[in-house]
């Protein structure tokens, strides 16, 4: 998809069209001014304030490790390779579950949106499983799939699948009817309409579904690791809890947060690139 936008494009100057609605500028360009710079500074200040508050509470005698202690522990864990191992184990699980989940959800969501009978067959099951927190499936998954990687990946798969399938389906049903008609009157037949209208028009919905799905995958993963795992960030924290090792628990929490944030930003970037044609925002 080539979405080339000529930066020189602005207001019509030579055309006869008088001042009807002025063309809107891309939001990204507007955001890149000094105001963005300033909000970045405020972000940083807020983070610094939060850390200072934490430090203050720790110094005031609350049972908390201080930021330097946590940093030192992170350094140690990174040195022994424990941190990298845990991160890789967790990321491996989350990514395999998430990729499988969304890969299954997108075609199923399309089928549900496009064929009413498919929707009638699948929708009750999705609505039912959606009400069950994926974590509640863990006991069942462990009994059926053992205590290896399979139950964890399965639970993450489920979490990602359920959120993504619903938004894909929503995306397909909310495609503007006039766009479909516009393609039809240009002689386009159903399969091509699907590929050239339905898929691009529902991409924004799919990407939102993927972001939400990634969030719930990540949340589910750590909880799954807390229950039963020989590796991973959840395991690292669970193990530290046994030894009352607060700094390690903090390292775990912060790593989880940062990784989640990083993955979300990555998807946000993809979303901006793929759906830059959208008018809102």
């Amino acid at each position, binding site marked *: *998809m080539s979405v*080339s936008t*000529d930066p020189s*494009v602005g207001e019509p100057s030579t055309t006869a069209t008088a001042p*009807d609605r002025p063309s809107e500028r891309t939001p990204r360009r507007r955001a890149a001014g000094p105001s963005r710079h300033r909000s970045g500074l405020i972000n940083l200040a807020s983070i610094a304030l939060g850390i200072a508050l934490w430090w203050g509470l720790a110094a005031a005698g609350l049972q908390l490790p201080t930021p330097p202690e946590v940093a030192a522990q992170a350094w140690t864990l990174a040195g022994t390779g424990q941190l990298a191992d845990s991160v890789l184990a967790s990321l491996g699980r989350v990514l395999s579950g998430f990729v499988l989940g969304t890969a299954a959800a997108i075609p199923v969501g399309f089928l549900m949106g496009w064929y009413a009978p498919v929707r009638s067959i699948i929708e009750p099951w999705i609505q039912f499983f959606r009400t069950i927190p994926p974590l509640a499936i863990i006991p069942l998954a462990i009994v059926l799939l053992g205590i290896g990687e399979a139950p964890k990946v399965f639970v993450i798969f489920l979490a990602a699948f359920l959120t993504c399938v619903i938004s894909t389906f929503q995306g397909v049903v909310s495609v503007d009817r006039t766009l479909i008609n516009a393609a039809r009157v240009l*002689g*386009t037949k159903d399969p091509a309409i699907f590929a050239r209208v339905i898929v691009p028009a529902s991409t924004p919905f799919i990407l939102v579904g993927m972001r939400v799905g990634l969030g719930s995958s990540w949340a589910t993963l750590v909880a799954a690791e807390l229950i039963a795992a020989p590796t991973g960030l959840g395991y690292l924290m669970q193990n530290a809890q046994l030894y009352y090792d607060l700094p390690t628990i903090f390292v775990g929490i912060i790593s989880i947060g940062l990784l989640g944030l990083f993955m979300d930003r990555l998807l946000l970037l993809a979303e901006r690139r793929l759906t830059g044609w959208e008018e809102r925002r």
Partner: protein
Amino acid sequence: MTTTAPTTTTAKISVREVTKEFDLGKESFTALDRVSLDIADNEFVTVVGPSGCGKSTLMNILAGLEEPTDGEARVDDVVVTGPGPERGVIFQQYALFPWLTVRKNVEFGLRTAKVPKAERRERADHFIELVGLTQFADALPKMLSGGMRQRCAIARAYAVDPSILLMDEPFGALDALTRVNLQDQLQETWRQDQRTVMFITHDVDEAVYLANRVVVMAARPGRVYDVVDIDVPYPRTEEFRLSPEFADLRNRVWSSVYHQQGRTVADRDGA
């Protein structure tokens, strides 16, 4: 799809006794009641009427997007059963694909028709130039104003070389000045490259200014109420718009639209 000249006896578009009823649960609503209408080749016909007179339904039936409950619509003497590239449609809401640039939008129907890339590009650029959007060929629809979007939609419809253009209140969402400009542009485009046009509008001035013939419809049930011939040569300009002749025709159509009694042309002619 050859567009060889049809025999003079058959109309380009022929609507025969078309009735359309919509099922509203308990009762049904008659959008069109035995509507008959002929449009000749290269004729520019505008259809005006109050809301609910079924003018958009009539257009959708000709476009093949809706089926009549009774009667039939023929194009080139073939019964309409679905959409086809020989009938271009322009929607009020532009219906541009927002993820495609102006050029890719105009090329959309050509890709469907599997026109080779180089030719596709050449034809798209030609029609983009015709509507004055060359500068904006690589812009996305979100960067265009309403008037520019509609011009892009017109180029897209023209690009697949339809012999008929069906326009559903194409300028309805635009401000008055832009609308007048687009009317002139459309007239100019049509003069350079003649097609059979059915143009739906609720604007009496627009209907009189553009058409060879104005068809006035009435509501509840939707039916043809009056037909007014506009025997004024093209090109029509501001001079015509401000002339007493225009005022007369406009008044004639206006009273037909706004002072309708429950009669049809057929009734009045004693049929």
